[in-house]
């Protein structure tokens, strides 16, 4: 009995591990947090500063690598992009920038293509995803395997042939050329079914059954039952379908085939930077970059939540 004499009464503090009770722990916590804040600030600076520099340069009268913040501010770079009457010194000669590099036309092309593609591709992708997710047909698995195999070929491989096919049906020059580009973009819709199929798989099948008992056919179920429930994935698909042609270089450059009135902004600006090998094109490029980024930025700002949801869901389902 003697042994228990020195036993202290047990307090709850000893039983439960609690960080807040120890002063050293709290200090350690705080110092690591400060470190994390520093690291995060540095990271943010690394990611943001180049863009700040881009915006600053877009207002610069002339480019020189020594000057980080322009001394003379001007809006000429923005004016030069659109104004066909605006003459400026460019590459040591006086010229109308918008005539040689019709940026307004490029922007219009891009916006039109992106708008049309985002609508059509979303509809087609969701339709095929729904078919793969809900409808039971004999060749379902085989079709999905076929898509997997086709997806392993580099998409560019058949592009030259696609161009000649479009040429055969007169869809490669002028305004029809834009239509041809739209066809090229939306033709691969069925191959993007994966993320949306994963989403449809999570919607309970008892909803379909309930609707079917109420006398709905499959068409009604798709448009009236499944679609209203799929807002996040619809927005995500639209967002992806809108931004893909916006930033595409490869396909657009093939279809345009050097015709500057058919360029989208990516091809046009790449041509601008490679052809004007000197420094003169850079501020105008920066101005164009700002203009091109604003619509996408706005979209992202409002639809951020949907985007995050889609990215996370897509990653989990592969």
């Amino acid at each position, binding site marked *: 009995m003697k042994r228990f004499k020195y036993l202290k009464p047990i307090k709850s503090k000893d039983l439960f591990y609690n960080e807040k009770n120890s002063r050293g722990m709290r200090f350690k916590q705080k110092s690591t947090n400060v470190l994390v804040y520093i690291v995060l600030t540095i990271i943010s600076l690394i990611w943001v500063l180049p863009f700040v520099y881009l915006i600053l340069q877009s207002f610069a009268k002339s480019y020189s690598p020594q000057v980080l913040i322009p001394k003379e501010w001007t809006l000429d770079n923005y004016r030069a992009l659109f104004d066909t009457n605006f003459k400026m010194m460019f590459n040591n000669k006086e010229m109308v920038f918008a005539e040689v590099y019709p940026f307004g036309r490029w922007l219009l092309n891009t916006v039109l293509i992106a708008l049309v593609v985002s609508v059509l591709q979303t509809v087609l992708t969701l339709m095929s995803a729904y078919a793969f997710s809900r409808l039971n047909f004999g060749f379902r698995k085989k079709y999905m395997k076929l898509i997997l195999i086709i997806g392993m070929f580099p998409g560019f491989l058949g592009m030259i042939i696609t161009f000649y096919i479009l040429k055969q049906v007169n869809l490669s020059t002028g305004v029809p050329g834009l239509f041809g580009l739209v066809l090229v973009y939306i033709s691969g819709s069925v191959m993007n079914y994966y993320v949306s199929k994963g989403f449809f798989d999570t919607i309970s099948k008892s909803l379909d059954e309930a609707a079917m008992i109420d006398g709905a056919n499959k068409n009604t179920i798709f448009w009236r039952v499944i679609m209203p429930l799929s807002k996040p994935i619809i927005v995500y698909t639209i967002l992806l379908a809108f931004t893909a042609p916006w*930033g595409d270089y490869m396909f657009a450059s*093939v279809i345009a085939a050097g015709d500057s009135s058919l360029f989208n902004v990516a091809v046009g600006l790449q041509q601008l930077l490679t052809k004007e090998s000197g420094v003169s094109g850079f501020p105008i490029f920066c101005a164009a*970059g700002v203009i091109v980024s604003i619509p996408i930025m706005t979209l992202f700002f409002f639809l951020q939540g949907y985007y995050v949801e889609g990215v996370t869901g897509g990653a989990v389902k592969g």
Partner: protein
Amino acid sequence: MTTIEYLSLPLHKRLFHKFISFFASIPMFFAKIFTKKIPQFFVGIYKKIAQVFFNIYLFFVDGDFKTKLSFVFMGFGLFTRKSFLRGILYFLFQAAYIYFAVTIGISSLMKIGTFGHIAQSSYVDPIVGIEIYTYQDDSFMLLLNTIIFAILTCVYVFLWYNQLKDSVELQNLHRIGKTIKDKEIVKSLVGKNYHYVMLSIPTLGLIIFTIIPLIFMILVAFTNYSSQFQQPKELFDWVGSYNFKKLFGLAGGAASHEFAYVFGQILIWTLTWAVFATFTNYFLGMIVAMLINKKGIRLKKLWRTILITTIAVPQFISLLFMSRFLSTNDGALNQILLDLGIITQNIKFLEDGIITKITVIVVNMWIGIPYTMLMCSGILMNIPQDLYESARIDGASPFKMYAKITLPYMLFVTGPYLISNFVGNINNFNVIYLLSGGNPQFTNVKGQMIQSQLFGAGQTDLLITWLYKMCMTQVEKDYGVASVIGIFVFVVVATFSLITYSRSNAVKNEGDFQ
């Protein structure tokens, strides 16, 4: 080795064991494919074909005169049994097919062995007295038409068999006094046949703009189609495996070993790039996400928004901007570093072999980390917090918790994403082409430029950008070699996907995480 034995090993031996067992399993994997899967596949196909022929025999024996006439006139049996809509559609398809076959298909097929006979012929116009050229055979169109004809024939055979089956079905229904009306067929399109409605347009697009061009390019790999043989002025020809030999340096000629050397270098760099680009982004992105998600860190939304904003800037803007920002002579970064006194000489960020490779990977991190961060932070929040709590009570260090809880969970959940990202990086055209353009050019051992025809290959070119240059930017284009490269990319990607998918299936069978 049993599980107990494996668990009793020290860490480095476990890793070693895993490493060995992974590579040891590869031959077994392929052996299984060749001994089991492929024979099974062919036996299955053989059985199905035999079944089809037997069915056709049955159709002929059991069918009445209407069904027998359907062997010649598609849809006859259906039409005469009051299933007018289907009957007419089948018949129209048959008419269109025969029209195509007679006007274009058969003649193309006859000429495809030699890609036509005469490209152009000329005669002197007796009235004007000028030589006039007429184009006869267009090799390109011949090949295209043959492919379309082949695909149409497949569809034709399929539909022909189906209408026979339908006709026999209707015949049997008639015996018991039943029939299928057109109304029911139309109704079934929103019922049990709804997938035809949903998939018809996407499939049509897939066939015209993806499958036909792919088949075409695969066939082009066996021809000498290049800018020297511009149709319609000249015919191109079958060359067998010459393009494959050329790529692997077996074609002979002075420059062949140089070509093979460049191809090898580009292949190695493509794989290196894919590994680095995938894993640097993945792990650093995860770390950034963990920093932001750390307990006690405030303004979580601000940090995340800052990074998301950079995703919103179109990639090509960031890349083109970086290509200028890093340029040796008039790039701002070199100037900043000079002013700060960190360097005394301009760094050739985009003009020196090794440095450019590093630059490309680093810039790719700059582009890709926000994206991975976004993806990871969603998943990190899903990890059950009690796992961490119990680990903390057991006295685990943060690093240990990362290695034993976070990483396994993330790898388990995002495994498929990693594979598809790896494949995506093998074909990552934008980052390379818009940033470095594949430059600098290749030099040989002595440091001189390689003079022979390389189709603009540079040291940071990936297979896909090289393919692009071969088809687009070079004066001398060679579509044959380009399509061999495309096929090669397919082989690489398919091998990686096959191995990893089979491995990940094995992982799944071992039981879920936890």
